[in-house]
């Protein structure tokens, strides 16, 4: 396996989010201070510099299969941009707090405090959903079904995209930090404050709780097959086998770092897992192999985000000092 530096870019502040355009041509990188840079995947040329949000940008989401980009920020707004031209196309004011979570599926789901809105691609409000008792802390669209999972301290709501109707509410009596669906939509998983990982199979009324973490679990990732669930929450990336009846009673694989894990990402079409720790170490793993560690890269700055390009050929890394690195990854 060969991992080489492809290009690097620089933001004016902490790289708070990274998102590849669905065609793989652009990498959008948001600075915590506000501006969003659109880099050309091929050579790192800065195609466009979007102003983003006053007082800071929090999250990015591309339209599935398209070239429209949404951003959420500290100004309580979701802004829409044309990725090809860099033009600002629409703004949706969704609340007075921070838009911290954004997910683009059948609609653009935007969480702002206790409010959750479903927006159209032109920024129009489709559904203003009932307020949650506490601030929304994570959003995830269900693959292969028009359903949105939205978590807050106290539980997860499963919402119908078309009508905005609440299909189900899964109570969870603690803070939730992250949500992820397995690719076939079978498992819904939350990473929790308590610290633990909670798994539901919504269609089978089954739930599991996996605990024993060092710290709250803020990072979750499923591999393309839905078998491996990678979780943060300490110095190890802890990988559970979710095949068949799920992880209960199975020992997880522990992929060790020397510092707390701060980002995780599985490839889209292949099986590599990238993990990053706050000491700057980035590692690649193959959970299926006997010797899972495939590569180690050391960054001089604390990493903030990891994102695989849609074709898995490039791995983008963001840093606390605003650097954006793109590594070329050749499987071999």
């Amino acid at each position: 396996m060969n991992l080489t530096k492809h290009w690097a870019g620089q933001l004016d502040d902490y790289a708070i989010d990274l998102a590849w355009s669905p065609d793989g041509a652009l990498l959008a990188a948001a600075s915590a201070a506000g501006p969003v840079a659109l880099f050309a995947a091929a050579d790192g040329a800065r195609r466009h510099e979007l102003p983003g949000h006053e007082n800071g940008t929090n999250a990015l989401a591309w339209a599935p299969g398209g070239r429209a980009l949404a951003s959420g920020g500290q100004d309580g707004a979701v802004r829409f941009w044309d990725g090809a031209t860099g033009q600002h196309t629409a703004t949706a004011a969704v609340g007075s707090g921070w838009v911290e979570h954004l997910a683009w599926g059948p609609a653009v789901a935007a969480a702002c405090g206790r409010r959750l809105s479903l927006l159209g691609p032109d920024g129009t409000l489709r559904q203003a959903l009932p307020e949650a008792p506490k601030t929304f802390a994570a959003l995830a669209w269900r693959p292969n079904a028009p359903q949105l999972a939205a978590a807050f301290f106290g539980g997860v709501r499963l919402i119908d995209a078309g009508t905005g109707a609440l299909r189900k509410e899964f109570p969870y009596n603690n803070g939730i930090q992250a949500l992820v669906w397995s690719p076939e939509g079978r498992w819904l998983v939350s990473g929790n404050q308590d610290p633990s990982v909670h798994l539901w199979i919504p269609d089978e009324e089954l739930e599991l709780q996996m605990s024993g973490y060092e710290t709250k679990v803020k990072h979750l990732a499923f591999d393309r097959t839905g078998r491996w669930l990678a979780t943060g929450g300490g110095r190890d990336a802890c990988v559970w086998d979710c095949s068949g009846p799920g992880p209960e009673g199975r020992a997880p694989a522990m992929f060790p770092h020397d510092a707390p894990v701060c980002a995780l990402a599985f490839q889209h079409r292949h099986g590599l897992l990238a993990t990053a720790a706050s000491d700057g170490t980035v590692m690649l793993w193959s959970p299926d192999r006997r010797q899972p560690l495939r590569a180690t890269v050391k960054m001089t700055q604390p990493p903030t985000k990891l994102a695989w390009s849609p074709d898995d050929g490039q791995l983008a890394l963001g840093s606390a000092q605003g650097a954006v690195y793109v590594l070329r990854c050749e499987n071999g």
Partner: protein
Amino acid sequence: MIPVTVLTGFLGAGKTTLLNRILTEQHGRKLAVIENEFGEVGVDNQLVISGEEELFEMNNGCICCSVRGDLIRILGRLLKRKDKLDGILIETTGLANPAPVAQTFFTDEEMRAAYRLDAIVTVVDAKHVLTHLDAGDESVKQIAFADVILLNKTDLVKPAELDELEERIRRINAVARIHRTRDCAVPLDRVLDVGGFNLERAAELDPKFLEPEYPFEWAGVYSLPAGDHELVIGHDGAEHDHGPGEGHGHAHRHHHHRGNENELDVALLPVRPVAQTHMAALEKDEPGFPSPFAVQEAEALTAFSGPEMKLGPGDPCRPGPGLLRLLLERGNGRYPLRVDEAGLYALFEGCGEEPLHVLVRGEPVKPGWQRDYHHSHSHDDAVSSVGIQQTGRLDPQKLNQWIGELLRTQGGDLYRMKGVINVKGKDQRLVFQGVHMLFDARFDRDWGPGPRMNTMVFIGKNLDRAQLTEAFQACLT
């Protein structure tokens, strides 16, 4: 780690005045202020965030285990910056219990790693605080939780009333630093980054409050020349070296002799050289000056708990470690005292009422510094403070067990707990702090070359000093 200041106080006490002062003064710090939702502060240059209080009840709605979810979120976001902030200021609503704010910094690993709860600053309206204190719990709590108290609006109250007020506050919280202010005018280094939470300046604590239950009641430090002197006990001698009317006014209203009336335990310990200025300050009894005799106090503690050497009248003695048990005849006794080296000597007396003199060439000498160890605490406020200060090494397991048990059984009543502990086998100080049932402990820096003094402070309801002290001592190795 970024210092966090929590600002509490009743509505109208002057919190907003203080906030505006902090935000507008040129102090060169880049701060973020998290104000409550009704905040009225707005200043360029500094970061002002309006938060809406959101409680995360971790354990069936128990306030002692609740944290502020909004703070975890906002403070988490504030870490996502290229340049770190110099400080965070959190304003709480007038009626808010500050516990969940403090607890947020103990339970969340991310918060713990990035932030340091520096101090809880409580602004008190000198004009109205008594009414508040009499009326209820919340203002008592705000005072109990405080590391720094601004006694504000002093212009509206007479100085004598202020003294009284301060006394009342002290009874609730013996360790907070109290500043008297008008319009919250206070140098900002008394409010920001003061290290209030970690007992960094334990020596500034009121020594009376910190006193353990010493097995001795009085000590005097004498400057003695080399030679043959005499230690004289009893009413037959000249006037008493200490006691009422001596200017140190700690009269013993209730005298209970410890043990046998015809025995007196003493320890005479040499004192390391003390800086002249220090000695002068001590003679003036300047408040807040640390006792330079802590070493001797600790040695005396050891001596008084060890085996004694019995001396009958006329038996000679010398300064040195160990306990001397003077056998008296009808309350009197004379004991030749040989001093080989001129210097300062600390004489500890088991019973402070026993007349005691040191005669040099037949003339009684006065101690240059003296102190009573006998004191009582009034309990007219249900909330009070207990301090323990003692040398020795603590067994980490026993300590853990004790604190765990204490928090389980008394956590609801314990508003604040802080300590600097000498743990067996560790060269670093173990610094801990707690609020209700949650606490945080970490090793910080190495102990200095001096004696390793354990300090523990408890503020809360229904505190039993004797029980806490005993439990602490049971953890010593």
